[in-house]
């Protein structure tokens, strides 16, 4: 009799344990599924050695997965910044793996550059991806251009931005305004003479005609600005600040009113700086 009850008890305990186990497993599975969906952690160490010869295809699949995940997260954030450190860390792992599997795939470098710089508020990390892109794709101007833009906008480092814009301006399909932008920054950072020398050196290179035309015009303007600045300095030493550039002509420091490459007169700003009409900033 006792044996029967013992069997029933054991059966009941086993049944309860099984049910509890099933519930726990289901809960665990659901949690782990959510965690997996949240993180989408790829088994990186395994993937590195076991793509079975399909590195580029696996890289493309991971890229689609990353974009789909990022898109979903971006929708959830409704326009707010994608700044969760865990999510950024996960994205970095994914991007690193994609690049490692297929280093000649250009999109991840640009994506990581912009994502980490703006959303992650880590401009240097973003720039490091763009610089890797510069090394990997020496004929593609975009990487140097975007790296320069990040230096200019986020790090306020005009010298580096100018160098990168100049580098980009030499490459095929680069927008023609890049050399002018580089010259503007160079002038703000190191003065008109350095900007002029940089552009003159650039003109000696084999540039696309469209870019060369623009740089020649910029050189003409910068030369006029440079000559005017020298005359202005000499005038100031003797008479103090002038009321207008006409004072420099009247006193013989300039032969005529200076003009830029388009024939528009240069202007003297209230701060005593020379400004060409086409330039975005006063100096």
């Amino acid at each position, binding site marked *: 009799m006792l044996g029967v009850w013992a069997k029933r008890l054991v059966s009941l305990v086993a049944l309860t344990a099984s049910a509890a186990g099933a519930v726990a497993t289901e809960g665990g599975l659901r949690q782990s599924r959510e965690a997996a969906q949240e993180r989408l952690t790829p088994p990186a160490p395994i993937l590195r*050695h076991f793509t*079975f*010869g*399909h590195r*580029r295809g696996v890289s*493309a*699949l991971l890229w*689609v997965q990353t974009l*789909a995940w990022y898109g979903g997260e971006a929708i959830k954030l409704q326009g707010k910044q994608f700044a969760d450190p865990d999510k950024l860390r996960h994205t970095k792992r994914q991007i690193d793996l994609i690049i490692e599997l297929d280093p000649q795939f250009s999109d991840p470098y640009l994506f990581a550059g912009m994502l980490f710089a703006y959303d992650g508020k880590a401009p240097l990390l973003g720039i490091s991806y763009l610089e890797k892109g510069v090394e990997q794709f020496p004929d593609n101007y975009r990487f140097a251009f975007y790296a320069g833009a990040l230096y200019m906008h986020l790090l306020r480092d005009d010298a580096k931005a100018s160098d990168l814009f100049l580098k980009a301006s030499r490459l095929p399909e680069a927008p023609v305004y890049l050399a002018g932008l580089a010259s503007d920054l160079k002038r703000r950072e190191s003065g008109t003479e350095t900007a002029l020398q940089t552009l003159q050196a650039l003109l000696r290179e084999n540039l696309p005609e469209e870019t060369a035309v623009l740089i020649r015009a910029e050189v003409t303007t910068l030369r006029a600005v440079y000559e005017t600045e020298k005359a202005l300095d000499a005038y100031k030493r003797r008479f103090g600040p002038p009321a207008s550039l006409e004072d420099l002509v009247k006193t013989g420091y300039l032969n005529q009113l200076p003009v830029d490459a388009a024939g528009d007169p240069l202007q003297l700003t209230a701060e005593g700086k020379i400004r060409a009409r086409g330039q975005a900033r006063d100096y």
Partner: protein
Amino acid sequence: MMWPLAKYTFLESIRDRIYLGFFTGLVVLNLLFLAVGSSPWGLTNHIVERLGWLAVDVMLSLLTAIYAVNNLNRERERKILYGHLTLPLGRSRYLLGKALGITMSLTLLAFVGATVIIVGDWYLTAVESVPFHMYWMVPSVMLKCMILLGYAILLTQLSSSALTATLFTLGLYLISNGAEELLGLAANLSGLSRTLVEGVYYLIPNLQLVDFEQASLYAGGVTPERLGLGLGYAAAYVTATLVLACLVFGRKDL
């Protein structure tokens, strides 16, 4: 007599359920990748081309392993083989005819797969010109498949069951397609395990030697040297495996 058998095998293949299943699967998969590639997520033709190449490569290799073994084994099980062997056709020629017929049917599928990707890529993802370079996937995948086919035929003769031969061929595909990764793995190991992994690397065919994806997609085309190396390597392996298979089949008690 070898050519009629090859033609018969080709016509039989393209009506086969396994072949048609892979055919449909490949076309659907490629259309799916085209849909992904032309979606408004900003994906490029890069994705379409690489995923398309991946699909053709994997599907054709799987089909080779599964269909070749199945075809040869089925003829033996259904006694069709005896009918063929009553013809003035040696056993070696029978195997070579089957190999040729299966290769023809695989080539057709590779062409269709490549064409779906090329036309779709050109039409949907706004590439400037028709990406004809993607046709390099046909010789690349076919050389791989021919090496696998040689092994599949040899393993069919060596093993008693179709399942074993299929599994071995599939295993061989997985390992030999990632042969370079095997070498990379060996570099991270030491002692006996390293020697073993290196040993496996030298034993198996290196299918990456006949893989033209990198050269075709990034290096501006496949050089004659690269093509010559791939063709020579594949020819050597296919010849060796088929000769061995013919020797085994010639002595086999049917």
